[in-house]
Every structure is written in C-alpha cells, then in structure tokens.
C-alpha cells in the first residue's frame, strides 16, 4: 500500500507516493536525498534526526512521513541562506560547538527552536533545552557557549 504525501521541505513543495511505514527521516534522507539529517538511535533519545516541523523541533525518526502531510519542514540543508551560514551555525563554528559533527544538525535545529521561544536563555535554560539531544564529543560546554553566542547575534 502506498499513500500520497505533499510536504514542503526547505521551502519547496514535494509530492511522493510512500509506504505508510516509511519514517520521515528516511523520506528526507532517501526519497529526497537530504542526508544532512542523521539517525543516531532507534528509541527517540539522541535527537540527531531533529528537524523543524512547522517551526517546532521534532524527531523525524519518531514520525511517519505520511504524518507530515501538508506540513512545512526545515532540515539542516535549509538553514543557510545564499551561502551564508545561519547565526546559530556561525556561533557553533565560532565557539567550537561541534567535533565529529554527527549530532550537529539536530543540535543546531533544536537550538534554533529554543532561541525562537526564548531569545535570551540562561545557561540552565540552554542545558535544559538540549536534553533531547545527545552529543558524545563536546561535553556540551561549547554547545552551550555557542547557543549563548547565537542569542547575542540574533
């Protein structure tokens, strides 16, 4: 059985017939070839697959592509505009908020959502706001610094 979906991804309307069991993350990675969204676990813990769904951070591994019908999705590929990094991306680079970079797309998008809701977060707000994203490299300290830096830039 296949089901028609129409989803706006990074500003472009995309239409496909997909198997209902297809996870949103696989729709993005394999159907659309947007491999910036990574899969780090299978139980909704790590947050590597985080994308913005109608502006809100969600885990694309815990959502069916068919559930995104009619929605607007931003992936990491859609963040930089005209070759210029988004302020959150800039801040991550400035503050060394990434090492291997695998968790980074999810981390950056969660940070975008966080700053949208709370433009001037404290360290504690940031640490709490990132509880759904795991990073095994950075020890989080520079990620927290990066989100603060981004807040100052935005």
């Amino acid at each position, binding site marked *: 059985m296949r089901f028609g979906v129409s989803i706006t991804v990074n500003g472009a309307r995309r239409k496909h017939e997909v198997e209902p069991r297809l996870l949103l993350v696989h729709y993005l990675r394999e159907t659309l070839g947007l491999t910036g969204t990574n899969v780090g676990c299978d139980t909704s813990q790590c947050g590597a697959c985080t994308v913005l769904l109608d502006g809100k951070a969600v885990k694309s591994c815990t959502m069916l592509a068919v*559930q995104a*019908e009619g929605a607007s999705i931003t992936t990491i590929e859609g963040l930089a505009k005209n070759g210029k990094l988004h302020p959150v991306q800039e801040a991550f680079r400035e503050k060394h908020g990434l090492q291997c970079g695998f968790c980074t797309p999810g981390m950056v998008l969660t940070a975008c959502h*966080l700053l949208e809701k709370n433009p001037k977060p404290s360290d504690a707000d940031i640490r709490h706001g990132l509880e759904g994203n795991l990073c095994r490299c950075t020890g989080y300290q520079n990620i927290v610094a990066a989100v603060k830096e981004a807040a100052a830039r935005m």
Partner: protein
Amino acid sequence: MYSESFEYFRPKTLAEASALLKKHRGARVLAGGHSLLPAMKFRLATPKALVDIGAIKGLSGIAAKGKAIGIGATTVHAEVAASKLLQRSCPLLPETAAQIGDVQVRNRGTIGGSIAHADPAADYPTALVALGATVVVRGPRGERKIPAEDFFVDLFTTALKPGEIVTAVLVPVSGKGTGAAYLKHPHPASRYAVAAAAAVVDVANGVCSRASLVIGGVSATPVRVLKAQDALVGKKPDAASIGAAAAQVEALVPDPMGDVYASGEFRVHLASVLAKRALAAAFERAKKG
C-alpha cells in the same frame, strides 16, 4: 529498526475514525505516535492498520468548560506546559507536562496518546488521577466520561472499549487555597518516571481540608494513597503530618515493578520521599495561592 507494514487511514471525522477502528480488527489509533511508533519499530506492536486522528478537526486545544478545563486529545505536551489558562487554573498539569520526555517529544507527543498507551512510567496518569480528572471518550455508541482513576486498568491497558477514542481530558479548576505539585525521579536515559508523586491539597484556616496523593512509576497503574487523607485532613500541615502521610506509601505497593536501574523496593522508597516533598511543595503553594 523498522516497523512491519500496515494499512494507514487518515479520517477527517471522529465517526469515520470509529468506523475504521471497528472495520479493521487490530487497528490502532495514531495520534502523536511517540508511544506507539517506538514499539512498532521494535515490532513489539504490530498493528495491521493505523487510524491517524491527526487530521480530525477540533481534537486539539485547551478551553475552559464551566468548572473544568478541557484539553483536546491531540494537544501536545508543549502546549499544555505553556498554557496560561492551565498555569492559572490547574498548574499541576503544565508542571507535569513540562517534565515529560524532552523538548522534541513534548512538541509532538499528545495527552490523548499518552494516556491511551497507559505506560506505567508515564507522567500524565499520576497527575490526572491526583486531580480527579475525567477522560472523555467517543465510540460507536457515543460519548462516555470516565474518571481518570477508573481509566487506567492495567499495564498498557485502559477502560477504552473497541472502537473508542480518547477525545479530551477534563481537569477541575483549582480554587483558592489549593496547592499542587508533581515530582518525579526521571530515568537518566529515557526520562520516564522511575517514581513519581502528585499531590493536590486544600488548606482552609491553616488546616488541611483535602489531600489527594497519588504515586506513579511503581506499579501497573497510578496508586492513590488513601490513607494520606486521614493523616492530613483536619490537621495543620507540618513536617509531622506530612511525614505521616508520606509514610503510608511504603506499605501500599506489595509487589512494585523493578528493573536493572531501580528495584521495586527502591522505587517505593523514592516514591515516599517524592510524596513527602510533593506534599510539602503543595502546601507551600496552597499558602501562597
């Protein structure tokens, strides 16, 4: 992991959804999917069909309904946590919602989905039972209103009958002199409640006039600590009476759940400590409220 194949339906109305559930034996309702999809990915749930209620209008949102506040079944946790109306009129629920999972989970998981899944380590059931909330369900034979306490029947098992769908949750508006608190010990990995306690108390003239204490995470369903009422009502809420009330927890669960992270014995101990702290916080708030 990936789930098995299934049929998928996206009805536009509740009636249509009920009919689909009736027609497809073994079909499951899909709301946010944050309880169901992880189980399906591990093939621990293998529904033949999913009925996605995400496109049904009017199932989401928070609104005052007389002396109660209605929360639509597909209202996500983040919306409950941020609701000004609830923060004013029933602050226990947003306090609970804010502690579920993580940011992304709260952006997608729904109150109806959570309670229909009835995970013993979920947060909402404990709080809803403590509040004396009502679960509104609709099925082929119309609407039913089920007290939260009767709704949670067993592990992953609710009072829902075949074809019935949770449509809303009604929580009472808390009055002056009411204080409430929800405390949990989250599992360090999953953030599910290893043990939790929800307390709702009324204080009049410095004396406790009502005390509702419920613990979660320790057994199949939330457990109401009835004797806490006896220990507190009519008394001044102080360390002694609160301690006496919380002490009732230990004797209450003869056969608590345990796992590699926390034994049943420790869960019960944690629950009693959390109960004590939740009661103290609730009384503190009642004083201010």
